[in-house]
């Protein structure tokens, strides 16, 4: 057995705007936690430090996350489509590589959330007959995603098989 077999990274990067999208997501998440704390802190005078101190800490943590995490994620998230399979890499602390063979693909969906839409992005989801086998490519340029979905649908149509 060869000494070192590794998975190579998929060839393609996500769209660059995905970094901004992730920043917005982390920012919104931070705000959802911090804003209620701020309001409570302003309304309830006796317990003010108990609300404002965590709010301050969380704001700092959130800002750091907004600044540092998305670029890091961007370096790790990759995708690739060959004639044979869809291949993605994701996760940070828990890295996950997924491979779904073309012959087993059942559906190809593109989804755009409201936040994604403002950044001109789409998510392509490829499902197989296994509910554990879905492969998602989050954060592609909208047009690129539509093209990709079309291409995938065409390829999977051409390959015979019952997908199970």
């Amino acid at each position, binding site marked *: 057995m060869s000494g070192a*077999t590794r998975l190579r990274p998929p*060839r393609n990067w996500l769209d660059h705007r995905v970094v901004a999208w992730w920043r917005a997501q982390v920012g919104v998440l931070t705000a959802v936690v911090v804003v209620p704390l701020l309001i409570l802190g302003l309304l309830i005078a006796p317990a003010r430090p108990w609300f404002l101190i965590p709010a301050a800490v969380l704001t700092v943590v959130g800002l750091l996350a907004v600044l540092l995490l*998305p*670029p890091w994620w961007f370096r790790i998230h990759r995708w690739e489509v060959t004639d044979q*399979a869809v291949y993605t890499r994701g996760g940070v*602390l828990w890295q996950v590589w997924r*491979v779904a*063979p073309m012959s087993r693909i059942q559906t190809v969906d593109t989804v755009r959330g409201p936040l994604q839409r403002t950044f001109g992005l789409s998510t392509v989801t490829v499902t197989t007959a296994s509910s554990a086998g879905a492969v998602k490519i989050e954060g592609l340029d909208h047009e690129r995603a539509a093209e990709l979905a079309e291409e995938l649908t065409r390829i999977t149509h051409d390959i015979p098989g019952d997908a199970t």
Partner: protein
Amino acid sequence: MSHPDDPADGPGDLPAARGNPSADGGPGWLVLHRDTLKVTGIWVFVLALGGAIPTTIGVGSGTSYGIALAWVVPAVALVVLGSVIADDVRWRHSRYRVTPARMELHKGMIFTTKRSLARERIRTVDLSADPVQRVFGLVKVSIGTGEQVEAGGPGQTPQTLVLDPVSRDEGERLRALLLDRAPLAADGTEPGVRVLARWDPGWLRFAPLSFWTFALAGIAVGGLFQVLNWFGRESLPVDTTRDIVEDIGATQTLVLFAVVFVLVGVVATLALTLEAWWAYRLEREPGGTLRVRRGLLTTRSVSIEEQRVRGVEIVEPLGVRSAGAARVDVVTTGLRADPKSEASTLLPAAPMTVAASVAAAVAGVRPGGRLRRHPAAARARRLRWALAADAVLAAVVSWLAVASPVRDFWAIVLTVLAAAACVALVLLAGDAYRSLGHDLDGEFLVARKGSVRRATVYLQRQGIIGWRVSQSVFQRRAGLLTLTATTAAGARRYSVIDADEHEVLEFGAEAVPGLLDPFLVRDPPRSTTAMIIGDPPHHGGVGRR
């Protein structure tokens, strides 16, 4: 299994109603069995009694039993009558038929449901009968396509038609007709049927070894308190316990209670297992179907199309394993999605040799072979988890002993239990490591893991429809990796956990040729640059537009 009615009719006997008067609505339409009214009446009566007796005692002890009965008897009669009338309405508006292409069911008066299944898509025809239905010779028939439209929305149930009830002969006729099987011969066996396994009462000895023993005993204790609560006697157990402690001492009381607790659990698991698995039989039918038949009071029959079988899983929970026994589950598409449900069980806990022979007969695998071991780092991980849990446990116990008002006796009991748990965790960690293994066995991928629930899955390599490779930070540092095969069958994913990060990728590439290969690099890695192999030209602009 007995068949009281004489199945004299031949196989070609299409919808000619068998003792069922045709209601209306044209040719071929059949109705459910009229005796459903009696069955419903009896069940509702039994349930009503369950409520009526405590009510009579409760009301009667306050006033007089005459008054209590005067209220309760008409109430029960009304409930029973009402349910029988409701069932009659249901009966009048339910009919079904089998056409050459479809199986159709119409039901409902106000909200009519018309459901039809294409016959070529029918995969399961399962028969079951509760005790009352058995007295009347009736069965409930569930007909399903086994398909889940996962893309159409999660949680969608498979398409199923339920005929509740028809006569047993009609049920068998439908099963034979819809699954395209030869009908039953007069003695209740089918020509060409091969029995793969048969119930052995000795297997009952494995039943109390499951965790259900404790769970059921716990439920029984909870039930006892609930009943006492109804009668306003919650303090009874506490008082009784105090009396017993005064009589025989604290330690003896504890031992006594533990023994009684376990005994209750043992009796309960024996009873449940007996009910569920009595008269168990696993058969292979000529048309390519596996059929599991079982049940003491409620009889069940589950059919599994062999074409859809993607493998087997040999499950050895700790207790059962210590007795040298194992259970066999089938890994199949089209069965209910819940892999924990009993529908997928091919063989209940039975001696390992029986389990191995069933697995061999069903899937052609050879259980018991040696598997590839996992690196020692996997053992170190498990030991670390166990020691971390030990530390938490020790901290909690010391806190309880020092800082809280736990009395001396209980502090000692707790400490003994905690010490035992600490040792057990470390032993389990070692056992969990020894359980790890993976290999290829002919056309199957074999993966074994788990200690409390050790499971060895034999998954058809053809049935693997994707890979998921995951590696946590800790796994990366230890050179380990988890390889998960996704499949349309069974639990939908089966993992080789904590294997050597290089070896397991080769293993995956070998298991399904061509799928993983294009994404592997086999050169000696230049570890710092491994991230940038094959980058597109714009990788310099990371993170900035």
